[in-house]
């Protein structure tokens, strides 16, 4: 077989090159359309319940994950610029809704019916105020009942409360200066709908859009366009605009992972070039090997395009992995070719000799690596199966390219070589020969230490720790959590009926880890609840309320409430809020009103004339139904087939492990299928662990059987596996001791080690069985396995320059593992052969 193959290549090498060139050009043309999908949902099996719900919701509503626009600056610049931002957003077709802005007429008109029941009583009196006395009294009641007496509620509503305080502050200032405007009264009546943090330094706008979350290209284009349009507003408005939310993070991931892959591939090629120059002293070898390698990768990309159409976040690394692995097969051929040329052997004869002695071990090495990858393919976890299939095919194709193209090129371009071989192995060979037992003992100790530390390995459940450092989107996400107690990492659920939606809303809205449920229920509460509210409103309106009383006492009470709330905020560590409250109660305008009531009373008639106009506009008796809800609201929550979407915003960062556990447990306690980025990420990790173990086991068995079949010797099959076992255990031990956590990306490295770590052992044993002498076997293989290890480490090590931290961890673990595999082959396997196989 080897002879036959050698003859074909020697006799038809020009034809082979022409045919492979055509195939490569066609592959290149096809693979240009290959996309990278960075969504973790793409890693889950299509029939996974989380994946099914996610994809179902995307189909019905296009986009689930909102984009949050963050505006950094001073309060006034933020307020002024928000209007301009909304104007810009209105011009973008894909934007469905803008919060806070859309539907304000509907919300304001139905403010009482849409309000939570527990706040209604105090608010009815507030809205129905006919005098400043009644107005201040109802505010005081509200402050004391809702905030001072209920600190948890106070904590949850700090942003709403600080907006309210700011509206009061503006009102006091305006009234002191006798410059009260309709806008000040409206802000007091309906509330200031702008979302600005208590310190006034960050404003947010939440937008929903119609871009399909699965369409990476459109997401990329939309976010870039949105960002470009908004950044223009920064210059004249003294503000800084950032974007966050899953679509923005996806865009950033695509950007960084594409950059990382390009740069690390270039770097690994440069490193390999340097190694070739040092090892072979002739750069021609590098260029010829690169042609063969790149050809194999291009073929793989084309096949991937035909099978999957896109790469996921794990297969995105295939370029770097294939460079690292594929170069090995070229190195084995070149090492021997060079040695044969040095012995003045004709190039054709050299190729023939290589095929006779080395091609079998190259194919064996490639086949075992390929088998270990293809075992990933049996996984029900799409992330693994795609990774396995793509890389399994990639290994086969790069090997085919190495066997067909490289010998053909060598025969054309390098027919003689007198260069010096730079790698010397004399010392190492002696040491292995002289101290086999000591080396085995050292490795045994390392393995034992590692086993005792294995339990310390932890799992990284913070997806943000995989992202590039310094991303604006991640920073804004953290700032929003800090300043608004709201995270953009949402979950969602679908309901078949409005009743089911309302019931779940009620349960989920009361969960401790939930800040807000964005649902149709907010705009259309259950009819029963509306009736109760109308009953409460009617009852409150019938009650006799004193319109006049001691106004000064109520203003004093108001000031006292501000002081007490400020003390409460102080003790809670809410610095921004207590400073705001201190500013308001120390402000001369409030103290002016306290000392001179007449300033207030002077415009009481005008104030309440407008106030009452607003009051008369609000709905206090008409039950709302779906026909009264504006379409912009309906379209956000109600699908064409009448399914209801509700989005859950957590109170804290779901990537903080303990909060994540509690939040997901709380959501699970509802017994409703709820999914989102957090759930999918955790599901990916859980599946990776489960499937990873399965793949590890099956790969081991498959490789063992394959080696057994090839060597036809149980002893040599077991010996080949020893460095592999040692590599896996010691690598895990190093991770445990140096606190390197597993994460969703680097966990892939462990099953990969099986395919990578076996190669050196196979070559050593293969040659040993041919030569029957350990010293000469080491001499024959050490150059090649040293070089292949260095080049593969260079390829994976080049991932360390990545911005996406998931790739860094992956590159680091694989580089460590490859080094351990190399050392285990030299200093554990060879001494073991020396001791065990005394022939």
């Amino acid at each position: 077989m080897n002879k036959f193959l050698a003859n074909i290549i020697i006799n038809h090498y020009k034809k082979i090159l022409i045919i492979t060139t055509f195939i490569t050009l066609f592959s290149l043309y096809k693979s240009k359309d290959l996309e990278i999908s960075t969504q973790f949902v793409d890693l889950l099996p299509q029939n996974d319940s989380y994946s099914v719900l996610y994809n179902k919701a995307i189909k019905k509503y296009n986009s689930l994950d909102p984009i949050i626009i963050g505006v950094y600056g001073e309060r006034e610049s933020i307020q002024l610029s928000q209007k301009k931002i909304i104007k810009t957003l209105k011009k973008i077709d894909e934007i469905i809704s803008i919060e806070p802005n859309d539907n304000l007429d509907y919300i304001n008109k139905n403010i009482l019916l849409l309000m939570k029941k527990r706040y209604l009583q105090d608010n009815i009196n507030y809205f129905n105020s006919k005098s400043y006395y009644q107005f201040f009294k109802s505010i005081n009641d509200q402050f004391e009942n809702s905030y001072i007496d209920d600190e948890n509620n106070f904590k949850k509503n700090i942003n709403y409360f600080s907006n309210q305080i700011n509206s009061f502050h503006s009102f006091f200032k305006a009234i002191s200066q006798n410059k009260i405007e309709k806008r000040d009264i409206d802000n007091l009546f309906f509330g200031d709908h702008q979302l600005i943090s208590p310190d006034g330094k960050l404003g947010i706008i939440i937008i929903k859009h119609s871009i399909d979350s699965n369409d990476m290209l459109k997401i990329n284009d939309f976010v870039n366009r949105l960002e470009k349009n908004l950044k223009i507003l920064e210059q004249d408005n003294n503000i800084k605009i950032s974007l966050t939310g899953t679509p923005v993070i996806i865009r950033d991931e695509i950007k960084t992972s594409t950059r990382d892959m390009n740069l690390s591939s270039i770097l690994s090629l440069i490193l390999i070039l340097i190694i070739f120059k040092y090892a072979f002293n002739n750069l021609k070898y590098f260029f010829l090997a690169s042609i063969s390698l790149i050809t194999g990768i291009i073929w793989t990309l084309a096949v991937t395009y035909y099978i999957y159409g896109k790469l996921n976040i794990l297969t995105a690394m295939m370029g770097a992995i294939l460079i690292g692995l594929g170069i090995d097969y070229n190195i084995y051929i070149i090492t021997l070719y060079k040695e044969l040329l040095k012995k003045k052997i004709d190039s054709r004869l050299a190729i023939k000799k290589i095929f006779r002695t080395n091609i079998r071990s190259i194919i064996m090495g490639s086949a075992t690596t390929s088998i270990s990858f293809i075992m990933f393919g049996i996984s029900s976890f799409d992330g693994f199966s795609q990774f396995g299939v793509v890389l399994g095919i990639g290994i086969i194709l790069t090997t085919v390219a190495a066997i067909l193209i490289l010998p053909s090129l060598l025969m054309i371009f390098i027919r003689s070589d007198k260069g010096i071989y730079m790698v010397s192995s004399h010392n190492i060979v002696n040491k292995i020969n002289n101290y086999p037992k000591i080396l085995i003992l050292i490795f045994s100790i390392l393995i034992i230490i590692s086993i005792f530390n294995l339990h310390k390995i932890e799992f990284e459940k913070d997806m943000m720790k995989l992202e590039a450092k310094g991303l604006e989107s991640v920073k804004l996400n953290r700032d929003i959590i800090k300043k608004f107690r709201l995270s953009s990492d949402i979950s969602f659920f679908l309901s078949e009926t409005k009743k089911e939606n309302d019931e779940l809303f009620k349960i989920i809205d009361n969960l401790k880890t939930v800040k807000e449920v964005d649902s149709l229920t907010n705009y259309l509460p259950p009819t029963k609840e509306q009736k109760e509210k109308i009953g409460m409103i009617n009852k409150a309106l019938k009650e006799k309320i004193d319109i006049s009383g001691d106004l000064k006492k109520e203003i004093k009470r108001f000031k006292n409430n501000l002081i007490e709330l400020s003390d409460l905020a102080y003790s809670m560590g809410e610095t921004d809020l207590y400073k705001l409250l201190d500013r308001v109660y120390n402000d001369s305008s409030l103290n002016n009103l306290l000392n001179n009531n007449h300033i207030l009373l002077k415009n009481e008639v005008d104030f309440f004339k407008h106030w009452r106009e607003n009051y008369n506009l609000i709905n206090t008796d008409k039950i709302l139904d779906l026909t009264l809800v504006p379409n912009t609201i309906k379209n956000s929550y109600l699908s064409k087939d009448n399914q209801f979407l509700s989005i859950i915003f957590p109170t804290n960062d779901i990537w903080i492990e303990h909060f994540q556990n509690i939040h997901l447990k709380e959501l699970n306690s509802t017994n409703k299928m709820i999914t989102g980025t957090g759930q999918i990420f955790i599901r990916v990790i859980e599946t990776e662990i489960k499937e990873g173990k399965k793949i590890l086991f099956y790969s081991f068995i498959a490789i063992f059987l394959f080696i057994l079949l090839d060597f036809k010797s149980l002893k040599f099959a077991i010996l080949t596996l020893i460095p592999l076992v040692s590599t896996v255990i010691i690598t895990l031990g190093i991770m445990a001791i140096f606190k390197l956590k597993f994460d969703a990306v680097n966990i892939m490295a462990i099953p990969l080690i099986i395919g990578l770590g076996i190669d050196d052992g196979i070559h050593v044993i293969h040659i040993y069985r041919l030569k029957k002498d350990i010293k000469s076997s080491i001499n024959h293989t050490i150059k090649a396995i040293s070089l292949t290890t260095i080049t593969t480490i260079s390829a994976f090590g080049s991932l360390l320059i990545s911005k996406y931290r998931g790739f860094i961890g992956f590159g680091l673990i694989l580089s460590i593992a490859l080094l351990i595999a190399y050392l285990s082959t030299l200093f554990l396997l060879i001494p073991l052969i020396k001791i065990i196989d005394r022939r």
Partner: protein
Amino acid sequence: MKIIILFLLIININLYGKNVEEIIKKVESNRDYKTSYMISEMLIYREDNLISQMQFEYYSKKIEEQEIQLLKYTSPKRLYKTAILVKNDKIWYYNNRTKRTRILAKQKKQGSMMGSSFSYDDLNISYLKNFKKQLMNNKEFYIIKLTPIQDYKQYKYLILKIDKKNYQELELKYFDENDINYKTMIFENYIKINSYLTPLKVVMINHIDNIKTEILSQKESIKYDLIIKNQFFEERNMRY
């Protein structure tokens, strides 16, 4: 055979039932003082950053099996003389800056105390009277599940970890209706004063908002069974 198993089971339940009552009695005997006084510091951390620091004097007295507590803040300056009185299921709050004394709503007892992870209810939990007790484990520590009998509580049950040697409370975990451990109280640095075991450091971790509150008591300030008149615990006394 079935009868024997049932009999053994009943005996076992009774033994466990008896044991758990005895354990709890011993735990409570460690703090069976009539009155107490101490100066404590309260430190509040959010994600390991110190966000608030307060000092207060703490007075307590048992009157007709009810424990009355009075906290008087001594620092920082803006909270100086702020006082909290917890008596007969009621809470009074005095703010020295506004000179106002207000009675707070009953549900406030379950809520946060001065922005900390502690609720007013956590200050002194009487395990003996108000809970159904179940010994879950007695290997290394006594682990007891405490389920409130009558009153509405934010928690569905508590899990108390007790040192077997001297019946010190070591850890108290709070679980809600979804079996989520949302708060954990940890007792550290025990010392013996007048035969009463006193933790100098009590930590409450709120796992939901990631806030940790430490109450550190000054060893020299702690006094038990001192004479404090009942009138001291009246609302009007809060302002002095």
